[in-house]
């Protein structure tokens, strides 16, 4: 029994956590309290397991664990390296908070089919963790598909025609992506006979026998495969999917799903193609241009939004491309920025979403124009919102500042000053669309004197009216606090250490 706790089996344990949790959730579907405690227990134990691997990885290097053979030269295997741990830590940590939040949200709105909801949620986390820990493209693909399929019922949770439409659109995009992914993997396997991630790429040997064009085309096949990263012009599933319950949008569309996409892109860029090959094929520049295009356009889209969740969706698209840009620059600093931004952006964006969700549950408001003076009714929520928004713009003292700082240094390091301009402009545009929200919330008077729960109208706080609301307020406060902590102490949860270690492995130094 004790050897199961050995380091080699930790990845398996981590994977088993959500599997067991989802099973127990299904079994105890009729007793909500027990069901939700399984969720919480599963998430906490997952987080602890992931965290326990970090010091070991930092000291001894990656943990390898191979379960069974899928194909010749391809195992169903986990390889816990520094980069994967960043993503794993982020998603497992946020699962705890979002689970808490979900309890408040789902009970607050008396949603239907809650067992299905928690079940799919756990499976989605399984997908995310699996993606983070997988050792080769095929394993990653398996979890990628699990993630796609398990989130589909979540997106369409509302079961209204619009929600089902959104779900279909979601599936249509992401499963098409899956097909591209499969094609890409097959071609790689055919060319080099392996799909294991390696810090300097695995595709280099193929350069001799294959034309450059094929490899360049293959890269774009992979880009299409990672449609989850919502780069433009294949982003439109993301705003549509915002119809999902807010905790779903929060975790899945700010953390698990979209981050799985950028995670995959970074894996492809650095661990499949490798820096040299990217330079050789001029793919870094192409990817950078794509990302820049998305950054700018998504920001303009965001400015025009009146619905808070949709605004956040476009902000997500923008920030994801910031991460992609970091990867595309192929310089150590930028790569660091991309990696840490996966974590930092996760915390900040989830804060924003949780705030939006709390507003929906407590006041029933979804449009920005309705939110006049809401800052006085819900001070904690809106403070958290403001903190995260500041972070999005990249201003200190919030985590976004650190990653933006590294990104700017990275552009200089790579000698691509144009991209520095892109980053700065995007920061500016971030301010343009986040500031009005904050202004509306804090500095305008309540316009419509009505509340969804029919309570007393007034300027007093309504956040803690029901104990249930605390399930929502506390998590978002925690994530907001973390967003600040990450700026002041970037080594919390070893995120920065891990990123530095990963970059050292990739580039051999800063």
């Amino acid at each position, binding site marked *: 029994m004790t050897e199961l706790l050995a380091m080699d089996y930790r990845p398996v344990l981590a994977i088993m956590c959500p599997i067991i949790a989802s099973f127990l959730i299904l079994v105890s579907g009729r007793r909500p309290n027990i069901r939700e405690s399984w969720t919480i227990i599963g998430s906490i134990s997952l987080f602890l397991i992931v965290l326990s691997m970090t010091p070991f990885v930092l000291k001894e290097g990656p943990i390898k664990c191979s379960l*069974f*053979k*899928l*194909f*010749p030269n391809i195992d*169903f295997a986990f390889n816990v390296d520094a980069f994967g741990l960043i993503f794993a830590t982020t998603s497992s940590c946020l699962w705890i908070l979002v689970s808490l939040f979900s309890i408040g949200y789902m009970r607050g709105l008396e949603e*239907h*089919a809650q067992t*299905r909801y928690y079940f799919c949620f756990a499976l989605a986390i399984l997908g995310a963790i699996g993606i983070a820990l997988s050792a080769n493209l*095929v394993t990653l*693909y*398996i979890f990628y*598909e*699990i993630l796609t*399929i398990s989130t*589909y*019922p979540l997106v*369409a949770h509302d*079961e*209204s025609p619009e929600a*089902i439409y959104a*779900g*279909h659109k979601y*599936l*249509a995009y992401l*499963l*098409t992506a899956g*097909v591209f992914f*499969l*094609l890409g993997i*097959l*071609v790689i*396997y*055919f060319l080099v006979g392996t799909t294991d991630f390696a810090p300097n790429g695995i595709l280099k040997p193929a350069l001799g026998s294959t034309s450059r064009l094929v490899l360049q085309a293959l890269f774009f096949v992979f880009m299409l495969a990672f449609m989850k990263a919502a780069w433009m012009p294949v982003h439109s599933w993301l705003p549509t999917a915002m119809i999902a319950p807010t905790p779903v949008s929060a975790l899945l569309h700010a953390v698990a799903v979209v981050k799985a996409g950028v995670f995959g892109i970074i894996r492809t860029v650095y661990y499949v193609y490798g820096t040299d090959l990217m330079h050789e094929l001029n793919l870094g520049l192409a990817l950078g241009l794509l990302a820049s295009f998305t950054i700018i356009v998504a920001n303009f889209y965001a400015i025009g939004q009146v619905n808070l969740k949709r605004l956040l969706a476009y902000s997500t698209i923008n920030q994801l491309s910031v991460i992609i840009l970091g990867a595309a620059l192929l310089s150590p600093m930028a790569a660091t920025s991309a990696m840490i931004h996966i974590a930092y952006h996760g915390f900040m964006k989830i804060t924003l979403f949780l705030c939006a969700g709390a507003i929906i549950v407590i006041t029933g408001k979804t449009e920005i124009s309705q939110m006049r003076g809401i800052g006085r009714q819900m001070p904690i929520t809106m403070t958290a919102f403001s903190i995260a928004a500041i972070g999005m713009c990249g201003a200190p003292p919030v985590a976004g500042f650190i990653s933006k700082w590294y990104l700017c240094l990275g552009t200089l390091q790579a000698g691509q000053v144009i991209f520095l301009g892109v980053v700065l402009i995007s920061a500016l545009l971030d301010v343009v669309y986040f500031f009005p929200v904050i202004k509306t919330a804090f500095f305008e008077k309540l316009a419509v004197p009505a509340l969804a729960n029919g309570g007393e109208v007034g300027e007093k706080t309504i956040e803690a009216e029901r104990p249930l609301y605390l399930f929502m307020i506390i998590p978002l406060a925690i994530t907001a606090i973390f967003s600040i902590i990450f700026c002041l102490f970037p080594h919390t949860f070893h995120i920065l250490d891990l990123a530095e270690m990963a970059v050292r492995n990739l580039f051999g130094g800063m």
Partner: protein
Amino acid sequence: MEKIISNSPALIVVIPLISAFLTLGIGVLKKKFCYPFAVIALSLSVFSSVVTLNTIIKTGTIHYHLGGWDPPWGIEYVVDYLNGLILVAIAIIGLMIVIFSKETVKMELPERIPFFYTIFLLEVTGLLGIVVTGDMFNLYVFLEIASLAGYALIAIGEDGAPLASFRYVIMGTIGACFYLLGVGYLYIMTGSLNMADLTQILPNFYHSKVIMVAFVFFVVGVAIKMALFPLHTWLPDAYTRAPSAVSALLAPLMTKVGVYVMIRILFTVFRPEFPIKMLHATDIMAWFGTFAILFGGIMALSQTDFKRMLCYIIVAEIGYMVGGIGMANALAIKGAIFHIINDMFMAACLFLVAGIVMHETGGHDISDFTGIFRKMPFTAAIFMVGALAVIGVPPTCGFFSKWYLLLGGIEAKHWGFVMALLLCTLMNVALFFRVIDKGLYVHALEHKLEHASEPKELQFHEAPLSMLIPGFIIAIAIFLIGIFNQAILKNIIELAIPSGL
């Protein structure tokens, strides 16, 4: 025990054959006993096929001389890696379906139980016989047993079944006669009916027109039997109208056995270089496979009947396998052979679900699936496994065979086939998620019903255990085959790939 092991190839066929005769006798005396007897008979068949496969893995190909006559003169059963595995799959699925059939037969054919089980066992006998035999004419005899039993079983289905079955009779007879014509043409040139013997003799005649014509008739005849597009026209009607237990037996097995015969003839009776290098028949087959995939997928999309949709999926799946044969390289053939096994389980799984839903709701339209996730969670779970396997989501087995087929397609640089396969994956997604939506999203419907204060429509509940257990076993098998695919491929299928590819 020694005796059983040494005679296991014959036992595979003889057990269901004799028990078919006995079932009738028992049925006349006591109807109730037919079902357990059929279950026992097929369990023994599974046992002997597993024993046979085990012997093959240990000692290699088994040649079993019936009546003690040496091969070219007597009839020989040959069990090698290729058909050993397929035998096990057929026997297992036959057993599962017979277990499953208890309730559906009671409901759909109450007054004809003994005859049903007799024919059912004969059908399994025929299918096993086709696979196990090493003699061209003996294959024809078993093909006819299987076909005749199939015609009858289909004709007792719901309204319109006789008509569908009649079409099948006409098409099937043409197919079987073409096959026999091929046998006759080979016979007149070589004087032999034994497959192994023919393999030795035929290379001398590879340039003969007679052999070429024989080859064409073989391929066309078998293509009819396995419903390769555009000769599939009999399939959708026949399998849609057939009783649940029958479509669950025939749909997975009959067509796949056809694919097996195709592989046997193309690569064992003829050596691979004949169809590949001399006739270029495989190039043509690759395109037929491609079109079958696209056609099957598109037609499936336009169906509202679940069983009919599955039928077109089968047409597409046949395209996978024929296309895989058409790629004519070891990777794709490996995928095709593996897909035979996988598709048997996948199709069995889905048709079982169709049968369960039919049993509980009385219909097999997609709309009959409304709310199954709530009301029949176990059925829904089985359905999900089958659906994901057809779509090709890892770690279900469908993914792994598709992988090899795609890899083979890439190696052959046959991009049309690769694209068709990938596109069909997407079409399958659309197909199954249509059903899943129906099953999953009942909130609005229930809401409406509550308001109208009508009695709730969604009152059906979970199926009896005799239907669920086979479903679960098949669903688990789908996962296990996927997870242990390397063991199966390494120890059996890779050795089954015909030499010379």
